[in-house]
C-alpha cells in the first residue's frame, strides 16, 4: 500500500473521531445514543472507496481498542467491544466497505440518488443487519425486541445517509480520490 493510502485511511479514522465530538442526541427509551459517527462510516466509504474505507474504520476501532476515548461521549477502551451494542461497532468497517463498493460501482453515473442508495444499503442496512442480531444473541433477547428497539434510529440514519450522499457528490467533483490511480489531484 502506498503511503498516500495510509494517510487517507488515518485521516478518515480521525474524521470519524472528530464527528464523535458533536454532542450525541440521547433518546430516552433506547440505551444507545444517536451520534454523528455513523455519518463518518458513510463518508469513509463514499470518499475512499471499499478497501480504504473499510480499513479506515478498522483503524478507528484499533484506536478505540488501545484506550483512546474517541467514541461519542468520550467512550473508548476494550469495554465497548464487550458491551451489548458492540455489534454495531463491529459492523462499521463492513458498512464502510459496502458503501465504498457501491460507490465505486455507481462511480461513472454517481448523482445524489445513486449515492443515497449506496449509503442507505451500506450505512444503514448492513449496520442493522449485523448490530440487531448481535444484540439479540448477546443479551439473550428475541430478535423482534432488538429489532423494534432500533427503529428510533431510522429517521436520524436516513438524514445522515442524505448528508453523506450530498458530500459524496460534492467531493467527487472537487477531489476524486476514488479515481486516483490514473490522475493525481492537484496539490500545492
Amino acid at each position, binding site marked *: 500500500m502506498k503511503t498516500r493510502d495510509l494517510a487517507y485511511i488515518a485521516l478518515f479514522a480521525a474524521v470519524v473521531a472528530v464527528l464523535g465530538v458533536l454532542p450525541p442526541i440521547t433518546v430516552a427509551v433506547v440505551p444507545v445514543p444517536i451520534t454523528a459517527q455513523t455519518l463518518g462510516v458513510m463518508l469513509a466509504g463514499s470518499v475512499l472507496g471499499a478497501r480504504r474505507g473499510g480499513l479506515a474504520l478498522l483503524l478507528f476501532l484499533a484506536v478505540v481498542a*488501545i*484506550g483512546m476515548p474517541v467514541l461519542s461521549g468520550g467512550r473508548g477502551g476494550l469495554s465497548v467491544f464487550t458491551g451489548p451494542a458492540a455489534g454495531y461497532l463491529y459492523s462499521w468497517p463492513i458498512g464502510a466497505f459496502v458503501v465504498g463498493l457501491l460507490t465505486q460501482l455507481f462511480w461513472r453515473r454517481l448523482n445524489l440518488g445513486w449515492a443515497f442508495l449506496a449509503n442507505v444499503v451500506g450505512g444503514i442496512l448492513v449496520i442493522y443487519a449485523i448490530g440487531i442480531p448481535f444484540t439479540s444473541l448477546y443479551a439473550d433477547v428475541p430478535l423482534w425486541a432488538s429489532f423494534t428497539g432500533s427503529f428510533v434510529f431510522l429517521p436520524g440514519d436516513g438524514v445522515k445517509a442524505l448528508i453523506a450522499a450530498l458530500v459524496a457528490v460534492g467531493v467527487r467533483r472537487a*477531489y476524486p480520490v476514488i479515481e486516483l490511480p490514473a490522475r493525481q489531484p492537484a496539490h500545492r
Partner: protein
Amino acid sequence: MTLLALYSPRPGALHRTPAGWKLAALAGLSVLLFAVPELPVAATALAVVVLLALAGARLTARQVLAQVRPVWLWLAGLLAFHLVVTDLATGALAVLRLATLVLAAAVVTATSRVAELVAVIEWLLAPLRLVGVRPGRIGLAIAMTLRFIPLVAERAGRIREAQAARGATRPLFLLLVPLLVQVLQLAHTTAEALDARGADDEAPPRPFWRRS
C-alpha cells in the same frame, strides 16, 4: 483538543502483567461465559473481576462503578425485559455476563499502556506478512490518526469562521465538502513528507504466492 488515553497509571500487579496475557484472559473469559451459561459461574466470574479491579488494578470503587455506568440502562432494561418475557434466572444470567465482560475489558484498558497494546496488535497482525502487509505500519497509522484528530477539528473550526465572516449562516453539514477537500490535500502532502523521510524504505514482504 488533546486526547488522554484511558490508561490509569497506578502501581498495581496487573499493570506489570504483559498486555498480551490480559487480552488472552479477556478472550478466554468471554468464551467461558457463553459456553457455560450457568448462574453460579457468571456470579463467581463477576466477583473475581471486581476483586481484580480493586486489588490487582488498584481502581477505586468509584472508578469501578463508572465503568458500568454507560451500560447500566441496558442492564436494567434487560432485567425488566426478561422478568416480563422469560424469567428471573435468564435475566440475571444475561445481566451478570454483560457486566462482567464490560468490567473485565475496562480493567485491561486501565492497566495497559498504549504502546504495549499497539505492540500486541502488531503481533496479532504478523501473519498478514504472508499476504504482503507490513504490520509495523499499524503503529504509524495509529500515530497519524492521533495527530490528525486535532488537525481536522482545528480546520473545521477555521472553515466555520471563514464562512461566518462572510455572513454565511449555512447548516453545519455544508462545511463538510470544503473541509474534506482541504484535509485530503493535507493528507496527500503528509504522505509525500513521510516518503521524503523514508516511510517507504522497508520494502513490503512478498506475498506467499509470489515467493519461490
